[in-house]
């Protein structure tokens, strides 16, 4: 790999935290963590989920597969998926 190293899990997580910091209309009872449940804790509705995903895509220059939506439950899950996709896309490039 000649370009900058792939962002780490922690870096992706930080980006997601920043996203919620800016975009959550309602502050959650406890601070956002990797264990935060997207629906139960963050009260994310479907449209917001889509917005978050497209924001991450723009930021990291990736395309998240649709299947993502099938097993992502927490903030940590999202970060792990993003790391995976970045690795895949750079591997193919």
């Amino acid at each position, binding site marked *: 790999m000649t370009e900058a190293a792939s962002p780490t899990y922690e870096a992706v997580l930080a980006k997601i935290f920043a996203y919620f910091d800016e975009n959550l209309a309602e502050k959650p009872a406890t601070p956002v963590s990797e264990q935060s449940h997207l629906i139960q804790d963050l009260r*994310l509705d479907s*449209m917001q989920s889509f917005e978050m995903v497209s924001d991450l895509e723009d930021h990291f220059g990736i395309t998240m597969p649709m299947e993502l939506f099938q097993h992502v439950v927490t903030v940590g899950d999202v970060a792990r998926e993003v790391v995976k996709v970045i690795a895949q896309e750079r591997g193919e490039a």
Partner: protein
Amino acid sequence: MIRSETLTQALDAATARADGGYSHLVQEKDPVKFFSYAETARRARRFGAALQAAGVRPGERVGLILPDSSEFVEAIYGAMYAGAIAVPVYPPMNLGQFEGYLANTTHILRQAGCSLVVTDGKVRPILGRLMSNVPSVRAVEVYASFVKQVDERAAPIGVDVKPDDVAFLQFTSGSTSRPKGVTLTHANLIANVYALGAGLNTSEDTYGLSWLPLYHDMGLIGFVFTPAVLQVRGVQFMSPLLFLKRPALWLRQLSERKAHVSFAPNFAYGLCTARIKDHELQGVDLSHLRVAGCGAEPIQYDTLNAFAERFAAWGFRRTAFLPCYGMAEHSLAVTFVGLDEDLRADKVDADALVHGEAKPSEADDALKVVCCGRTFPGHELRIVDAEGNPLPERRVGQIELRGPSVMRGYWGDAERTLQVLRDGWLATGDLGYLVDGELYVCGRIKDLIIIHGRNYYPQDLEWQASQVEGVRKGNVVAFGIEDASLGRERVIVAAEVRTPHADDLRDKIAAKILETLALKPDEIVLLPPGSLPKTSSGKLQRNKTSELYRDGQLGKGAVKAGTIDVIKHLATSRWSYIRAAFGSRDAED
């Protein structure tokens, strides 16, 4: 062009056009797959032959749960070639919400009496328990391996498809428990397609583009059947999820493909205005778009107007908007406005409207009801009162329809068929009025709230409550409950809000409804997100909400929102569910 009498005949005739066919875009970065009409027909026949090999006889029902648009198109035509009756079922989108999905799917497959289900490799594992719950299902097959059981050139044998044969069942999951399978014949569909084709003034050069789900009438009939019947140049499909994730992609694809025709429900236009950023539209030119259809849910003048103003800079012409009215029981389309007409709304007095009169008003608080145009030649539409007597213009009543597009009935449900079909007239359950023969739709019958003899549409209360900052748009239910102590109905508005303990929100909602509708709700119930009951397909349930309220159980946590409610949104044949599931910014039911 000889007029086709069945959809299989239509696809066969379209194969003569080597340049025409269906294109499919599944993932943003994937190349677009193109299958000519001839290639589509060959693949469809192979699927039909595989059905025969699996022992499916003409008239048997086959459930199709296929998220991929090319597999879906091949399978639905293939079932027709085999004389089988396809039953499109929405695919699951969210593994966290299987209980509801499986329950709803089970109801549909049972009601249809499906003998076979065809799905894809991703969905197959979660349908494991399905077979034991639906005794009629002999097997659940995966499309890719299923068709490989027969030769590439295989075709069904000995099937003679006739115009009066049932072509497929369109399940419309009303908010009530039992799903209704709208039974449509080839003749119904052919009649509707020719009628709407004339309304769109299609030519052999016409190109369409759609992200609509194909298990919904607008996507299926409008963009799968219509292109072949009318032998237009073709259609490109893109996944509904792609649109939701990146609304700009719809406009970019419209521009890239120089598409002439596209359709979407009201909420989609609102989503574009809200979500698309200017930089996402570099180089986009929408000037080829001749028809931007809008239907399948109530149309908001302000939503479309805002879209037209915002995207005019990219060549969008507001005269491209084509508001329409339609329903599955009438195949698809009922009325269209004329081509190239400007968007028109009838401004009426809100007070008079609840008394059943659409009285023109120039007041600031007048309601804007969008014109949905006229019905098609050979089709009839009338407005009737509660006793079934036709009403004069500008009087609000039930919309009734008659003609060749009207369904045969609800599959296996004579009782509910009789409730809506009388003397050939289809009672739509929708309320509207006519002006100069043009239709204006203003609500639904069964959910009316009646106070002191005046009718209020819950949709109106819900819409107004949704306008209040802090309320989750589209997640509001209004209903009335008989209350002897009041001597009238008690009006309750239950709203999902982001901060449930904000009492001033209660006042704001009540004030908004009072200001706009001159009705004072008796109680405003504030609920956390995900509290309102929805069908497994995502439509808000007014009756259920009212029951929970009566039982003191509303907001007591029995109902949870899904991990991501995508499933609900793609879930059914009525767009209102989609809007409801998404908490969409603009639409109302």
